[in-house]
């Protein structure tokens, strides 16, 4: 398989793609002059569950930042639900952006707000409502993520794991259709890792918190093993290239590629 090989794998969704990258170049979020991935051709169907693997500094976070619409591609075309996504906050683009959610590595919450206020912020901003009007939805999300006891705490007073859960709650607040998660399992103990795997499986299957609709998931990580039985599509970032590994059987056939990942070699 070549790095810039077109994404021939679209199953199980045969409908029009949710996301589509054509020859996209990804630059670093912190250093816009530095190219981290080139020539990405990638198609994500509605309901897909992708895992993007890559080692440290392979550009996973920058790739997800571009996919979530924070960074615009310096080259190529990126379409979200059929609409080319460029920078800015124009109303017509805002609607497309709000169908995407991103959970940052570590949550990246606003430190001057409490956990409940962080979750309520997108609801209040886009719905132009007072925090009290968003209380019911915030309560649901706090229950889902087990954060109710810490609702009134500020992010820097709770552990990284809980901050990341708050990031998930905030990303789900606006009921997105595609959810990106940047290294959600990094630094977790087995119990917390199991919680994340379970909740993502439920979201992928259709959870009541997202109106029962199967959420399209794109997760990054440095190890494919936890995802082998859960994710349905796999890709890898390596040497500035996006390697589409396809679905599970295909990924197994690409074992040679997988073995090149030190995270897998440890196994």
């Amino acid at each position: 398989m070549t790095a810039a090989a077109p994404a021939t794998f679209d199953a199980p969704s045969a409908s029009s793609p949710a996301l589509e990258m054509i020859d996209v170049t990804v630059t670093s979020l912190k250093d816009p002059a530095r190219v981290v991935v080139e020539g990405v051709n990638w198609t994500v169907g509605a309901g897909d569950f992708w895992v993007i693997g890559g080692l440290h500094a392979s550009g996973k976070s920058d790739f997800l930042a571009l996919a979530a619409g924070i960074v615009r591609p310096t080259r190529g075309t990126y379409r979200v639900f059929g609409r080319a996504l460029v920078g800015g906050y124009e109303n017509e683009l805002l609607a497309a952006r709000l169908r995407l959610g991103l959970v940052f590595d570590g949550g990246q919450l606003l430190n001057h707000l409490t956990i409940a206020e962080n979750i309520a912020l997108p609801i209040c901003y886009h719905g132009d409502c007072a925090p009290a009007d968003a209380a019911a939805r915030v309560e649901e999300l706090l229950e889902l993520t087990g954060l109710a006891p810490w609702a009134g705490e500020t992010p820097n007073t709770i552990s990284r794991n809980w901050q990341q859960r708050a990031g998930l709650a905030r990303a789900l607040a606006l009921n997105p259709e595609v959810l990106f998660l940047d290294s959600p399992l990094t630094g977790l103990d087995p119990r917390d890792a199991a919680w994340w795997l379970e909740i993502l499986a439920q979201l992928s299957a259709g959870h009541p918190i997202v109106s029962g609709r199967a959420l399209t998931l794109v997760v990054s990580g440095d190890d494919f093993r936890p995802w082998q039985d859960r994710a349905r599509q796999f890709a890898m970032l390596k040497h500035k290239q996006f390697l589409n590994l396809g679905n599970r059987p295909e990924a197994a056939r690409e074992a040679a590629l997988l073995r090149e990942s030190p995270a897998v070699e440890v196994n």
Partner: protein
Amino acid sequence: MPNGNATPLSESATRLLVRPALPFSYVNFIGHHLLRFLRVMYGLGAFVLITLGVLVTKFGVARRVIHPLVRTQLHRSGLRLLPMVIFLSVALGLVVIGQTVSLLTRVGVNNFLGTVMVTVVVRELGPLLTALLVLARTGTANVIELGTARALGEVESLEVLGIDPIHYLVVPRVIGMALGIFSLTVYLILGALVSGYLWAFIQDVPILPGDYFRQLAAALSGLDFVLLALKTCIFGAVIAIVTCYHGLAQPLQLSEVSEAAIHAVVHSIILCVLVDALFILVYLIA
């Protein structure tokens, strides 16, 4: 041979050039700083236009989120600084009156007391002193807050939630600082004018309160009120935009936040003085 970062030139090359009055290292030093200042001004210009654009286009957007933020900023840049401003106003009244009374008494023109107060306090020192106070107390806090938020990725968090960081972080600060500096200047001027008379009274200056305030009223014109409001609001907007620009406009590491605060203070002072100079021109023309 030049020192520092100067690039040595061959003898044939230097023959073609007029030898500069300063060694190359100094020329490089000045040129480097001048170019950097111009680059910042260019970036600031763009930032001002973006902020104004967002201020206008998103005027009524998310009022229930933005209005509390504006109130918070008004509290930080206005109400919380009121005790300090009252202290400064008393001190300013003493300084101006203490110096001018002795001077005017020497030349026997005490009836110019009101005119001097209006010219010095209302037009110049009042707005500038308030702006510097707000810059020191709130402007530096702005850079540190926003620089830290930028370094910790909070700006990207807002973007991914579809919230324009300029609308959420900059617009409330611009409105809060503009109104805050305007209000504080009014209090500073009123305090300085009243305390000025008290200091004059203590020094046995033979002037009645009625005469003093009549002198003030005669020295003030309608233009003073308009230009005072305009100048203080512009000072507030300039300080807010410069401090937000240095905190937000480029990716920052945590270690770079203190340096950004230093640059923000320097550029704010330079721009406020330039704005003040423009208003002096307006006064002279008017």
